[in-house]
């Protein structure tokens, strides 16, 4: 097979190149060019010298992340929370999608879908206020119920009870994202050829057989793509969620602190651009490695489902 040069390709497929050009240019200007700012992570930033004129300072900016062992703790928390959220929100979303698509009543189906989707539109600031009013020691709904039933009120904001926040946070995350994620799966399920189900009906399959042997395999590529995309964000805690739910309750930080909240707390007042850039660089670098590794694993198992 004869190999052709780039110019030949360009001439031959000029319409295709033209069509791709806007997207390529946008990505280049909005995603690749700003990446040059990453040098900031290795600089002692000085306003009058600018990003590229400032002096280099090696890995000094990264040091504060790992000062007194916090780096490991917050990295662990971030990864575990994201894994939990991956399982809860994605898994539940798949189940919800299947249930909704199996529903018969059209109106009821729409209604359920809207209700599940609604939390997506509620800002974390509002959710934070919900949570505070639910769990507040003195006036919270939870403790009101406990008192009414004659048991001791529960103070969730102490270090002894901090572990409960793992479930609270995952629950809120699930509540907020399930509806949104399920939309994508519902779309995938709608795309499945109805003839498959009709054939299964004739063969005498029941509803569980159909879900297991038809629906699941059909939406597997979608599930894998969604998970791969989520893995790319695994080191980015949903800052707003943690910040609004926990606030400054120091006794919970051991359990609830993620990289983003730690960086925010440490640098909000000092405004050191180099250090914030370093934190962001650290997150991106680890995410990059994770995506490559997971993608490799996926392509070993199933070549067609891998992203690249």
């Amino acid at each position, binding site marked *: 097979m004869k190999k052709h040069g780039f110019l030949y390709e360009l001439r031959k497929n000029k319409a295709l190149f033209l069509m791709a050009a806007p997207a390529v240019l946008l990505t*280049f200007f909005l995603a*690749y*060019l700003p*990446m*040059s700012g990453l*040098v900031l992570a290795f600089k002692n930033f*000085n*306003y*009058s*010298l*600018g*990003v*590229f*004129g400032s002096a280099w300072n090696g890995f*000094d900016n990264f*040091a*504060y992340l790992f*000062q*007194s*062992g*916090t780096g490991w703790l917050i990295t662990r928390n971030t990864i575990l929370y994201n894994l939990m959220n991956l399982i809860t929100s994605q898994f539940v979303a798949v189940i919800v999608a299947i249930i909704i698509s199996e529903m018969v009543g059209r109106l009821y189906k729409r209604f359920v879908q809207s209700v599940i989707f609604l939390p997506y539109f509620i800002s974390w*600031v509002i959710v*934070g*206020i919900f*949570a*505070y009013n639910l*769990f*507040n*020691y*003195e*006036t*919270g709904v939870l403790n009101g119920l406990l008192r009414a039933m004659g048991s001791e009120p529960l*103070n*969730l*904001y*102490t270090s002894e009870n901090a572990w409960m926040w793992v479930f609270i946070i995952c629950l809120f995350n699930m509540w907020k994202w399930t509806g949104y994620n399920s939309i994508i799966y519902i779309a995938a399920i709608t795309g499945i050829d109805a003839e498959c189900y009709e054939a299964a009906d004739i063969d005498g399959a029941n509803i569980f057989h159909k879900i297991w042997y038809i629906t699941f395999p059909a939406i597997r590529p979608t599930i894998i793509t969604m998970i791969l995309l989520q893995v790319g964000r695994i080191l980015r805690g949903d800052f707003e969620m943690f910040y*609004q*739910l*926990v*606030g*400054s*309750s*120091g*006794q919970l*930080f051991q359990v609830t602190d993620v990289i983003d909240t*730690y960086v925010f*707390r*440490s*640098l909000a*007042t*000092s405004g*050191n651009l180099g*250090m914030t850039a370093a934190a962001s660089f650290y997150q991106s670098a680890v995410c990059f490695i994770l995506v490559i590794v997971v993608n490799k694993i996926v392509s070993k198992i199933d070549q067609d489902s891998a992203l690249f």
Partner: protein
Amino acid sequence: MKKFQKFLALVLVLALAVTVFAGCSGGSGSGSAAGGSGSGSGDLPDVDNSQAVNLTMYFISDKPGKWDEVEANYNKLFQEKLNTTLTTQWIAWSDYGNKYPLLFSSGEEFDLAYTATWLSYASLAQKGAFKELDDIWPKYAPNNWAQQSEAAKIQATVNGHYYCIPTLLATYSAYGPYYRTDLLDDSEWDGAMEGFDDLETYLDAIKAKYPEMQPYGVTMSGSELDDMWLGANSLYAIRGTSWLFIDPFADEPKLTTWYQYDGVMDFLTMMKRWCEKGFWSRSALSNAGNNEMDNGIFCVDVHNVDTYSGKVINEYNDPKGWTWGYKNWVKDVSNLPFTQDACVIPTTTKHADRALQLYDYITTDEEGYRAFMNGIEGTTYEIVDGQVRTLNADQDYGSTGMWAARNSKFNLPTEGSPEDEQEMKAEWDAYIAENGNRHSQYYSGFTIDTTSIETEYNACGNVVQQYWWPLELGFTDDLEAGLKEFQSQMEAAGVNKVIETLQAQLEDYIKNFPPES
């Protein structure tokens, strides 16, 4: 392999592209740095007002809709008196963080600008962004120079030279509880509020009468009772940190933090007792704050006198039948740094003499001051019984963002402000005048430079929030153990290096600017 080579080629192309762009911005960056290095004043002639000049002033604020009318009004006056006009340039709040630093690196010609400690005044001065004022300040702004306090002049000094003109408006380190008095009108409460014991009596009385209230205001941003405790015990918290303090009366003050301080257990035991009495919620640190004070859930907090004054003015404008009281508990009252609002002359100006002359006129001549700070008499403001009444508030005349130009002599209280405010301020002024530039007043000139210890300093701030805040609010069961944990976390974060470095800076300060004996 082929695939990999292609990929490598792509990476190289991208890298090249990035370096090309990097080269551009790098070039412009260094060029501007070179432009800002000259700062000598040279011999300037006496002010010659024969030429009409138009000066430009930059400051941070959002431009009000009808500012042009105000500007035309004061320019008529400036033209007549000094043959000068002034154009104001407003940097909007939304992007001052980007625009302000660029102002001095762009090489643009202008004549006056606002600066402040929180806008990195000291580091910009070191980088040569501002004109050195050693000779020209007393020469062209003699009235302003004469009214400056010693503390203010020290605060304006960077590397032995003056680079800014601090504000002439005195603000005070006075701090104390502002509290509602109407709640206990018909009870036996004696009205005393001289210290923590009185506050506890007050809070007990409130809690007995209104058990559903959480009377002391604590939210996500923490409580300031720790700072209050220091002030009430004649200790001085170093500006810029919330966890380092000194004894301002000691001959050789040592930087101290909470676990090194003898009185810490007294403080913590009191706070634990208050928490158990329900003066604040046990979940308070997760409360984002929803105006509880105005909604009648909180009724007391510690803050400065302006907050108290604001509450009283609110009540005047929109009466709810609430009355407020205020007491200062800080024993060794001092002025807050005067450089928290200041004026600079950029190195690019061509009219430093005229700029200083104009600034002198604005800050020290009542006519110039009123026109620039208050606006148009009869249209935007009028003075009633020594208080300023805002007129046509709905018409967006606004007021200037050049807060540095304020002067205690001319700055009048807003209509409806409390009567005792001026008395208290007079008391503090008398105390400061009597004590001279000593103790807290003297140390207010000391600012910390954390450049070399940024990592440790930030880590410590973080530990304070994680361990000290819950301890301070009485959320920790075992105080002794909690304090030990706090100490060990602080040490792991590098507190000793922080204290050592800052202690050396403090000693340098004492050596370079010896206090009055």
